[in-house]
């Protein structure tokens, strides 16, 4: 009964998203309490990224509502949601290619950082360097974003998201295409961020990583929630196994 005593950070109620005749999300409702490490799994095309796009504002939803920190954000554009505290990374990294790593972060600090904390230009640079150091990218600060390796690109996207001072961080397959040691590296990073009071939604295909990371896991299939609960509960669920094994 613990989650009920606490107001959820993010509440998704009765969310439906259609593209033409195709229903990508079908009446999805879920509450995510503050501080939770939340795993989102499901086969390809099950609606995971669509759900992320609805939370971050890239898609408008009709019908359904998204409530964040007790405020209805269903109709807000993405940049306002970012300023309210929702940050994300992208499945295929989308760095600002004409900029250096440092400048990529400065965009977040310029436009979305908490202005009550970060006031001056010096403040901003300090904040930028501290995020880069934490992400292990300090030596890459003045390198062009196009010159980064895959794992560095993933880290930079998370760093840029952190620059917006998020309360909720959505990591969309930040480990896809990485080696197992790199997966551990990124996983540790996300763990350390979660320890700092940031709620994290992690979408991932690498099952071990999701299971290790998440306190609670949700599985989507064809736009519907087929299981939600602790990692063990979800993994032992009959329908989840069927969805993943394709039987």
């Amino acid at each position, binding site marked *: 009964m613990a989650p009920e005593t606490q107001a959820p950070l993010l509440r998704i109620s009765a969310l439906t998203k259609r593209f033409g005749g195709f229903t990508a999300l079908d009446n999805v409702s879920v509450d995510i309490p503050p501080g939770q490490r939340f795993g989102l799994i499901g086969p390809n095309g099950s609606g995971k990224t669509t759900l992320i796009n609805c939370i*971050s*504002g*890239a898609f408008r939803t009709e019908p359904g509502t998204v409530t964040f920190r007790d405020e209805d954000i269903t109709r807000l*554009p*993405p*940049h*306002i949601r*970012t*300023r309210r505290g929702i*940050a*994300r990374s*992208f499945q295929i990294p*989308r*760095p*600002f*290619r*004409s*900029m250096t790593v440092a*400048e990529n972060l*400065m*965009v*977040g600090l*310029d*436009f*979305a950082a908490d202005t009550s904390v970060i006031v001056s230009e010096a403040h901003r640079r300090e904040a930028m360097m501290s995020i880069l150091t934490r992400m292990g990218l300090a030596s890459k600060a003045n390198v062009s974003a196009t010159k980064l390796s895959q794992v560095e690109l993933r880290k930079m996207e998370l760093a*840029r*998201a952190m*620059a*917006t001072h998020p309360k909720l961080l959505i990591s969309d397959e930040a480990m896809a295409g990485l080696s197992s040691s790199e997966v551990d590296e990124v996983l540790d990073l996300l763990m350390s961020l979660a320890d700092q009071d940031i709620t994290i939604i992690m979408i991932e295909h690498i099952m071990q990583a999701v299971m290790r990371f998440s306190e609670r896991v949700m599985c989507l299939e064809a736009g519907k929630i087929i299981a939600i609960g602790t990692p063990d509960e979800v993994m032992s669920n009959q329908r989840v196994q069927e969805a993943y094994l394709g039987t």
Partner: protein
Amino acid sequence: MKRNGIYFWIGAALFLAGAMLMTQVIGNQYPFFACYVILQFIVLAVAWSILGGYAGYVNFGTSAFFGVGVYTAVFLFKATGVPLAVQIAAAAAVGALMGFALGLLTLRMQGIFFSIATIAATIIIETAITNWRYVGGASGIQLQRPAVMAPFDNYVEMLFFVQAVMVVLAVAISRYIQNSWIGRGLQALKDDELAAECTGVPTLRLKLTACVISGALMCAAGAPAAMYLQYADPASAFNLNYSVSALAMSLIGGTAHWAGPVIGAILLGVTQQLLTVTISSEVNVLVLGVMLVLFVVAAPEGIIGLIRKVRSKRNEGEG
């Protein structure tokens, strides 16, 4: 940073002082006629670059803004006879409004759709002016220059100086945008619009801001043209050549830095003046087109990009 700013303003002051000196010393009218056109193209290219360069939205509608600037001045002059400064200020205001309206209509479109929409807007506005009898319709309108004001002893010299002031204004605005958070936001949305939104950049508002500023400057640059030619007609005021010139000068100069369009406009403007005098005005459009295609294919970052490349090579050589 601070020191750069001081140098910039000293340079601007010297430029204006030089322009003023020219009007007092040189008696021959021709240099002013020629330089006026070059200055006008600097303003247009710099203004184009604010939306087309920083934000990456290829505007084919420079001639729409320029033409509206011309006709704002024509209308005000005919209706009220207000002085040039008021005509220019009014043109800037109209240009800002037009930028806002056009931006709202078109800035949600991407890439080529935006570009085509701006051509469409140009032709529609031109057609409307062509059907507006009060300002002369298709056949155009003759204008009589009023008396010139001190310290100038000739109207063209005054126009030349006025356009020089607008150059300084346009470059200062463009430079401010580039170095401010607005510039950083525009650069981010140029690279990736969705990623920019999700990093907190209010993309539509920034694009609209760029469109409004760019439009105001283009209209202002067009306002004195009626007095310069003592004549205005829709076909030449809305000529697509203004669009291709502004675009070509910006891209050839390079859009990554405010100085790019200035360099491009001076280079091409001077070449055009020489070609028009020595060969023909058709050939100068040809040269413009060929240069544009060559640069876009072979030197995508323009002259600014070439300079940066040479510099970094030299640094590597030394280090």
